[in-house]
């Protein structure tokens, strides 16, 4: 179980989740228990090395060598009827043993089975692209590059897909802070106004839970609105809702609340 941590200052510190936490595994069973998976595994084992295989939550998981991925997926698509690549991405194990775990989730519509193909690569290594086999791998591999920095060899357009092209850092790494690093914090200011504008615009105010009645910058004064940046003395009168100036508006009929009709029935 996760170690208990005090949460009495939860509003000021929003994120207590341990990002290196490893969830407990559900039970694994042997592949032989499922005839379809056993036949599939035998077909793969006949041509490629399989390090480990088991069934977990009615899905077969196999671990292969990184260099075999294109051949294994080609075999599964053409001969074993696993015709869809549902998703693929990476898992960050850099803190544990400096490696990434790459997974490919395969689906067979005719067999109604799913197989997850996995392998490990070391940090800095590239993977083989399977974009020629599955078009869905095009954007998935770009996203993997965008979020983890893992490049795919033979990919037709190996560029970032979600973050801007000139972004630095890989946001889904467990070592990447959720609120961004120094580059992310000043990205838009640096790009639009230049580094010299940092002092004028100031750092980001990240604590959205902060409520301060003397603060006219953070919009916490409902009913006592003042222009932004006003020095608050504490005895501002409450602001009553008024839609027009008291002395009327040129050429516009003054709103008369007494004589206006309020429609109660929303369906009318």
């Amino acid at each position, binding site marked *: 179980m996760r170690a208990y941590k005090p949460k009495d200052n939860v509003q000021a510190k929003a994120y207590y989740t341990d990002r290196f936490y490893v969830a407990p595994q559900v039970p694994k069973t042997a592949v032989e228990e499922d005839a379809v998976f056993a036949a599939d595994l035998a077909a793969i084992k006949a041509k490629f090395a399989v390090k480990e295989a088991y069934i977990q939550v009615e899905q077969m998981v196999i671990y292969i060598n990184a260099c075999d991925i294109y051949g294994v997926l080609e075999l599964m698509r053409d001969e074993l009827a696993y015709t869809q690549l549902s998703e693929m991405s990476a898992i960050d194990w850099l803190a544990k043993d400096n490696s990434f775990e790459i997974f490919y989730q395969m689906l067979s519509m005719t067999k109604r089975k799913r197989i997850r193909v996995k392998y490990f690569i070391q940090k800095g290594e590239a993977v083989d692209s399977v974009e020629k086999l599955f078009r869905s791998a095009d954007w998935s591999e770009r996203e993997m590059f965008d979020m983890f920095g893992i490049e795919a060899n033979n990919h037709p357009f190996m560029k970032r897909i979600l973050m801007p092209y000139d972004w630095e850092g890989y946001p889904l790494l467990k070592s990447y802070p*959720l609120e*961004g690093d120094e580059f992310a914090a000043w990205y838009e200011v640096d790009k*639009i106004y230049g580094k010299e504008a940092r002092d004028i615009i100031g750092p980001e105010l990240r604590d*959205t839970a902060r409520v301060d009645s003397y603060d006219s910058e953070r919009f916490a004064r409902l009913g006592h609105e003042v222009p*932004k940046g006003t020095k608050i003395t504490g005895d501002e009168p409450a602001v009553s809702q008024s*839609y*027009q*100036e008291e002395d009327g508006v040129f050429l516009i009929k003054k709103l008369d609340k007494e004589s206006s009709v309020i429609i109660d029935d929303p369906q009318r």
Partner: protein
Amino acid sequence: MAQHKVNYTQDGGLPVALTSIDKIVNWGRSNSLWALTYGLACCGIEMMASGASRFDFDRFGTIFRASPRQADVMIVAGTLTKKHAEFIKRLYDQMTEPRWVISMGSCANTGGMFNTYATVQGCDRIIPVDLYLPGCAPRPETLQYGVMLLQKKIRANKAGNAQKAKRLM
């Protein structure tokens, strides 16, 4: 030729309204606030509802325009991501003066619930904002009240003067 009878005893005696240049210019500006179609996220749905028949923005003279060159007010309706930040600046610069900005909803005000690396923590870090609307998302009534407050703000200023420089830089 039709004979129109003019009642010279009504409205101070003449069918003429006297006013100042300021008032007539501000009357025109505040009652034809054309808004830029700029729905960035879920607040955009509320902004669209404000423009549709039930809430009917047209009666305020607020008509959505798809070009910043024709717009007077930019309603930043939704989450402003860092990737999009340069484009909000470009669109703001393309609007002709006088121009105003309404920051609609928590995300545009402060980044809201998106306390992450990819979200601009308040669109006032990029462009100057005239009016902040609280809410997640604000109801169309809030947006309409906000537009009426902006009309009051426009009418309170002198029209003859060039708009004060509101750029951050």
